[in-house]
């Protein structure tokens, strides 16, 4: 099997695409032109659902200039309010029926290779939905050193968000939020079968960071009927992350594992860390099975919850700012469709086509929420 696998290696290398840019750079390979179509479905135990279709294209215009386009359409459905107070992430208007909204997203990008070892990248992102709008500019530079054994990738991003709130009369109140984000990724080849990668990131968020629909219960003179106020978070937040990972090919079993660890902390006092391990295994020369496991835990933010309702206090019911841990496990299967094109000249186009399907189950240990979610994703990729 190994000899057969190696004869297909050049094709596989050519099929590696944008997301594996650093791997391609390590391999000294050229990114293939490709089209990809993805379908994604999310459902949680509160019956919130998100259905997404995404299309992406990467095309080399000239020898060293590559353009990319990504178009994504989402439909989010939030069930009717149960208690009308906490955890409700939808407008209270027409609260007895499901809240459904559509979202469109487009990302256009250009990547230019300069010389043998330098790549410049620029992207523009725009998304629109009835109560949210986002515009982003992304720039980056990637530099190879030591015969492409060491790669430095630096990225910067600026995001302007308009956070809308659908009011009782149907009008929309918009609030401003801006985000600056910087990331440095380092990748180092260790051997012909292993590389290590690290990252450092800083995010600065300024503006409206609350959920405009979420309300917080506060004590009142009648303990049976608590008062409610609108959630209020600080306007400024600095967030940092460091990460480290290793990818290792296991020749004897035609498999590979990837291990990643990240640590996050911010000036709201929230600190968290996550570890992810994934094992990818060829079960035939055209089929890959990939189980994975992810662990995450976080300490709650320290600025407190209800603090008296004064003008300088912050009030939240956002579970993402509380103490909790989560686990996730998934399995992914990928197939190179060349298996179906062999000995069929008319189906030769399948030689560059691959499909994948993934299921991921997620649950956290919060009480009483016990949030659980299921994610399904399928992808079809055609390289040309």
């Amino acid at each position: 099997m190994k000899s057969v696998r190696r004869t297909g290696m050049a094709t596989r290398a050519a099929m590696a695409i944008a997301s594996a840019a650093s791997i391609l750079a390590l391999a000294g390979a050229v990114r293939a032109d490709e089209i990809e179509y993805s379908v994604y479905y999310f459902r949680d135990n509160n019956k919130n659902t998100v259905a997404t279709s995404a299309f992406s294209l990467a095309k080399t215009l000239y020898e060293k200039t590559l353009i990319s386009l990504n178009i994504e359409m989402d439909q989010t459905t939030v069930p009717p309010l149960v208690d009308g107070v906490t955890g409700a992430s939808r407008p209270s208007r027409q609260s007895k029926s499901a809240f459904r909204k559509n979202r469109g997203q487009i990302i256009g990008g250009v990547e230019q290779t300069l010389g043998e070892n330098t790549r410049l990248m620029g992207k523009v992102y725009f998304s629109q939905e009835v109560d949210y709008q986002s515009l982003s500019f992304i720039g980056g530079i990637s530099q190879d050193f030591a015969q492409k054994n060491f790669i430095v990738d630096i990225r910067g991003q600026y995001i302007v968000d308009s956070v809308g709130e659908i009011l009782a009369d149907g009008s929309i109140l918009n609030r401003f939020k801006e985000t600056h984000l910087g990331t440095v990724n380092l990748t180092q080849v260790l051997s012909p079968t292993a590389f290590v990668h690290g990252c450092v990131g800083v995010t600065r968020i300024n503006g409206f960071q609350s959920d405009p629909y979420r309300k917080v219960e506060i004590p009142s003179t009648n303990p049976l009927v608590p008062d409610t106020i609108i959630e209020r978070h600080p306007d400024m937040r600095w967030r940092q992350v460091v990460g480290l990972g290793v990818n290792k090919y296991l020749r004897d079993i035609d498999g590979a594992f990837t291990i990643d660890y990240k640590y996050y902390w911010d000036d709201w006092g929230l600190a968290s860390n996550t570890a992810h391990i994934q094992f990818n295994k060829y079960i035939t020369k055209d089929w890959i099975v990939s189980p994975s496991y992810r662990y995450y835990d976080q300490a709650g933010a320290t600025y407190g919850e209800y603090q008296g309702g004064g003008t300088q206090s912050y009030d939240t019911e956002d579970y993402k700012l509380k103490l909790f841990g989560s686990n996730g496990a998934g399995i992914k299967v990928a197939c190179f469709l060349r298996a179906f094109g062999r000995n069929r000249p008319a189906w030769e186009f399948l030689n560059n086509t691959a499909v994948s399907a993934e299921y991921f189950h997620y649950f956290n240990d919060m009480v009483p929420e016990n949030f659980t979610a299921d994610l399904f994703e399928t992808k079809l990729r055609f390289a040309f």
Partner: protein
Amino acid sequence: MTLKSQLALFALTALALALGGCATVKPFEREMLADPIMDANLGFGNQGLVDKFFTTREGSIGCGTAVGGGCGCSK
């Protein structure tokens, strides 16, 4: 994590990278590095859909592929 721990983690990262820098892998030796199974995404793109789920449901952000705000962010 204390500042000392952060510095230790960063130092370990730098050490790993520096040690790796001692090895030079030639282009013709990189066959396995280019294999799709060396990529957590198996050579497919658009990992942002799953990353975005974590970003919008947890206190984690950064060092990923998710960009922009919008759908799901206010949950």
